[in-house]
């Protein structure tokens, strides 16, 4: 725990040294919300039929849930490899791995700040949408939403750990996060439901983790679906997580061992 706090403190101090960072991040969330709001006004007179299926009367509520999850997805997919790459380039990875801290612990702790900050952005997304623009969350079933959210993050984190392992080995940013992120954004029902995709594509898209997550979260947040109601989505995500997470940890361990075997921890 103390090591986790050490990384959090270090990252906070680094971020605070860039004075406009916080302001620009919050402004960024505000701009996203406004964009969605104006987009939703196009459909204000006649909301698309699919919106009602998720328990919302408004496209804005539909899209905000997707965008909040998308933000977290990018953090979970990308922050592990990004942080490790930073440590590689700074030369600090070698100094850190010479301490008793475990390599996997270092990977998780180094992303703690990114996850915390993304959580804050999610609160701003959902809270801002609720307070300023719409009565978004009055029917929300929070336990169901939380379960789906945590399982979705576990799946994205596992994929992010694979990407981190690849980054360690190739000593360069990996495009794998962009590939996964791009597919999830395109096919995962973030801004539109998978039903609008061509049927062969939609048949596959229904089973990707992002679609399971956006569907489950919208049902829990917007129509008050209980944990039993979102069971199929939760079970699907749990199966993905159970399959991917242990493999990702093993792969990361193997990547660190290979670095020690190659003697390339300090190279970048």
């Amino acid at each position, binding site marked *: 725990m103390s090591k986790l706090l050490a990384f959090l403190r270090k990252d906070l*101090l680094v971020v605070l040294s860039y004075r406009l960072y916080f302001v620009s991040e919050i402004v960024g969330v505000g701009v996203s919300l406004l964009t969605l709001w104006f987009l939703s006004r196009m459909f204000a007179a006649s909301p698309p039929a699919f919106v009602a299926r998720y328990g919302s009367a408004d496209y804005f509520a539909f899209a905000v849930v997707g965008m909040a999850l998308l933000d977290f997805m990018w953090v979970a997919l990308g922050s592990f490899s990004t942080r490790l790459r930073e440590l590689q380039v700074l*030369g600090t990875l070698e100094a850190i791995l010479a301490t*008793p*801290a475990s390599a996997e612990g270092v990977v998780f702790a180094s992303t703690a700040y990114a996850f915390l900050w993304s959580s804050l952005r999610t609160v701003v997304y959902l809270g801002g949408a609720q307070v300023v623009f719409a009565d978004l969350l009055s029917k929300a079933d929070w336990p169901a939403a939380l379960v789906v959210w945590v399982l979705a993050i576990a799946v994205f984190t596992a994929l992010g750990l694979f990407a981190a392992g690849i980054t360690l080995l190739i000593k360069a940013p990996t495009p794998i996060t962009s590939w996964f992120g791009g597919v999830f954004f395109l096919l995962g029902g973030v801004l539109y439901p998978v039903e609008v995709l061509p049927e062969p594509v939609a048949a596959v898209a229904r089973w990707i983790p992002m679609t399971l997550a956006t569907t489950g979260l919208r049902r829990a947040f917007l129509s008050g679906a209980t944990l039993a109601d979102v069971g199929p989505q939760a079970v699907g995500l749990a199966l993905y997580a159970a399959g991917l997470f242990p493999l990702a940890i093993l792969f990361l361990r193997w990547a660190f061992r290979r670095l*020690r075997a190659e*003697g390339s921890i300090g190279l970048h």
Partner: protein
Amino acid sequence: MPPLLVAERLSRSYRSPVSLGDLLRLRFTREVVPALVEATFSMEPGELVGLVGSNGSGKSTLLRVAAGLLLPTSGRLAVAGHAPYAADPAGRRAVGAVFSDSRSFFWRLTGRENLRFFATLHGMAGPERARRVDEVLEAVGLVDAAHRRVMAYSTGMRQRLAIARALVHRPRLLLLDEVTEGLDREFQPKLLALFDRLRVDEGVALLYATHRVDELAGRAARVVALAKGAPARVLAYPAWAAEGTP
């Protein structure tokens, strides 16, 4: 009392990468380059052992194995009974290392914040950590610059900070790679005096890689002499000095 460090037939080789030209010629085998050959020696607490040899003779390789950053190809090395390159962190806990690389800090943090961070990774906390950080800053003469960001440090100041980082968790074994490189003439004797105090008063052992014979004279009883591709030799300091080898 068992030795603090034990190296037994410790060897490390590297494989050269396969180039595109090799692939086009359907040559897939990689050349094996020996970096360290059969080093066998031990170190007692409070002892300084010189690590000498020309560039590329394997000094840094040996230090990196001892720091847990590199796996040996064969043989074994243990510090306080534990392999520092194993998953078990016990071996790394006993080791402090200074490598000739001044990049390895968070440049937007101050010197004190950097030391605090690394001390925490070594399991230190609270007032003990703060006190120890102050002590090592004092020891390397960086108290006045402790509040400045590392990006404002000179090369010599970063080297001093690296020494402070190696000392912060009270290691039993110090691995030093050209440690006086980049330091001003005024500080060099102070640093050597600090190392002498650590050896005599606290029983810290030093594995000391250098090209400077004067730094070993009167301090090292033995040297581990490395040469490219040849087995490591352990010599009494006078015998090695009489050879006049680098």
